[in-house]
């Protein structure tokens, strides 16, 4: 692990993270992916592009996001000191916007007139709709019909900002099917359309681009923790669905081996129940959505249905870099159940006055369980990836309350 970590420079020229990643798509998409990759490589270090991006991140998103000491929660947990990286305070309510402000600039540079995106919980859809409205670009969001029901408010938000929301009722009618449908649309309108994938998933170069745009989170945290603690945190915890918020906060720390990185998947009704969305904890490598990665699948390679109380983690795959980091042992992956996540949601709301997204609540649940086992002097940072406003309906339902 040591050597690999020191020389960490992935993906390689074939878009691989070790054996993971790659570009498993139909031939029609290859040239668009190559175009995106070469443009991105050309402009990512371009000063003008970086200035434009930084300006958008500051004035449109509201960066940098604060690093907040959760004092009362720390006291309650009676263990390590817990800090929250407040991505929930970003415009549109989650880390997702870090990626969309960057990708919309790429789309403009490529002269694309139309933007499509998939969404699960709706956060990525909202973040895409927002940047499209701001730049005056046509926006189409693909969303599973089951998720449309679970996240009705986010659907309305997208529409208010001018996006068209296309219900997807094939397969399991959730995030994975929305992604299939977005890919199908992209193949059909490839010449004038850019597809903004919302996670560190999909074919190369998406896992790299989405990671890079989100790594502003980890880069800020490095500076903030030097100032606040005089060192890096001892542990960084983030939830993992596709894994974009986790990659964003982990990536700048990969070479800093003294920092433990912990990704928390959705264990749904429990890992042993089979009703979960935890491919790293209980899956096997395979190919889906253009990438080789850990998947929930049967022995014939059919993708299994997933379950999680949070729509944003309800995905049978995971970004390929996470699969790589798991196998090399640099990141430690665990899972939290629906029940544990809901408890963490309530705890943080009551004790800190911060309502986290249900996705984020999985990372908080890990801290709840483990803070006591750590030294009091240890510093744990949780990526508070999103706010819970969108989840009122789901939480109320779980609590047996009808609006």
């Amino acid at each position: 692990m040591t050597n690999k970590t020191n020389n960490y420079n992935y993906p390689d020229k074939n878009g691989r993270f070790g054996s993971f990643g790659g570009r498993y798509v139909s031939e029609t998409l290859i040239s668009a992916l190559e175009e995106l990759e070469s443009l991105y490589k050309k402009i990512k270090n371009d000063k003008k592009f970086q200035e434009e991006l930084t300006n958008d991140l500051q004035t449109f998103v509201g960066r940098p996001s604060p690093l907040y000491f959760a004092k009362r929660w720390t006291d309650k947990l009676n263990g390590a000191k817990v800090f929250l990286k407040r991505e929930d305070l970003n415009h549109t309510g989650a880390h997702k916007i870090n990626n969309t402000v960057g990708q919309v600039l790429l789309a403009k540079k490529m002269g694309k007139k139309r933007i499509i995106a998939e969404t699960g919980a709706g956060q990525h859809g909202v973040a895409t709709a927002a940047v499209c409205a701001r730049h005056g670009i046509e926006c189409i969001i693909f969303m599973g019909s089951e998720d449309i029901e679970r996240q009705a408010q986010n659907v309305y938000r997208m529409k208010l900002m001018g996006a068209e929301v296309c219900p997807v009722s094939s397969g399991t009618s959730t995030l994975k099917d929305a992604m299939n449908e977005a890919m199908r649309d992209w193949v059909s309108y490839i010449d004038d359309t850019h597809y903004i994938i919302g996670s560190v998933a999909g074919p190369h170069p998406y896992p790299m681009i989405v990671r890079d745009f989100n790594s502003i989170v980890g880069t800020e945290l490095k500076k903030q923790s030097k100032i606040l603690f005089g060192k890096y945190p001892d542990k960084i915890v983030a939830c993992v669905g596709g894994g974009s918020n986790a990659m964003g906060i982990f990536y700048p720390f990969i070479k800093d081996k003294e920092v433990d990185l912990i990704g928390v998947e959705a264990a749904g009704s429990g890992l042993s129940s089979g009703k979960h969305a935890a491919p790293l904890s209980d899956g096997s490598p395979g190919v889906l959505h253009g990438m080789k990665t850990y998947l929930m699948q049967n022995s014939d390679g059919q993708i299994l249905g997933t379950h999680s109380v949070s729509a944003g983690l309800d995905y049978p795959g995971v970004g390929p870099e996470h699969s790589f980091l798991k196998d090399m042992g640099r990141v430690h992956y665990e899972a939290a159940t629906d029940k544990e996540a809901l408890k963490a949601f309530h705890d943080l709301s009551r004790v800190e006055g911060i309502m986290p997204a249900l996705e984020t609540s999985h990372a908080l649940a890990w801290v709840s369980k483990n803070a006591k086992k750590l030294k009091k002097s240890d510093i744990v940072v949780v990526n508070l990836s999103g706010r819970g406003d969108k989840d009122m309906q789901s939480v109320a339902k779980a609590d047996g309350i009808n609006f």
Partner: protein
Amino acid sequence: MGRIKDSFERAKNQESKTLITYYVAGDNNLNFSKKVFLKLLSYADIIEIGVPFSDPMAEGSVIQRSHERALSSDITFKKILSLVNKLRVHNQDKPIVLMGYMNNFLSQGESLFKKIKNAGVDGLIIVDLPYEESEFFYNKLKDIDLDLIRLISPTTPKKTIEKIVKFSSGFLYYVSFRGVTGAKLSNFKEVQDNVKYIKSKTKLPVVVGFGIKEGEIAQKMSKISDGVVIGSRLIDIVQQNNFRLNDSLKFLEKSLKKFRRDVRKK
């Protein structure tokens, strides 16, 4: 690499272009699809057997639903191979090609190659096979005299076409438009130019597929290529007959006879 090559030769000798059909194994159950394949074997030159996948990214709605129906009838890779085996008892000459997605083939591990060879399969079409892995599959299949059939699309750059044909055998499958299976054809001139270009780079036959629903299009496409693939249209026919076996077979036969005439050189 016998049967596929022979089938193109045979069609040529009969003053015809090659008629290739696609249908999904297990739609809407294993036995029904077997009857359909037997019908297809008596009219088509090559049959493609669709391996159903839970997430068929390149398919339009007709073939998507077909994959879904097949999976809910509990089709497995093993059952598909035994289906091929049974079809081989009835017909020893016509090529049978499996068409599907990477994950289903990967799930079989290294034994995939031996299994498909033993079942009587002649080649593979893997929709989402990336370049870097095509050489591996090409060689593995070549070792056991099977073909790796590759797709080329309207967006494939010319330079890439040369790379693709290098690790292809049997025939090349030109995707007629930017889109998913079953959508409408857009630009005939583009298809004509691209097929011509591909043919200048390879000795392999080039067939055209995606969006060939009517006899008229089949006729036009077969004139500028070595053959056509009919897929969604056949599934449409079966759907329209509500999967009633006798009616489905009757209308399939009618349609196949018509396509057969349409691909004949005039």
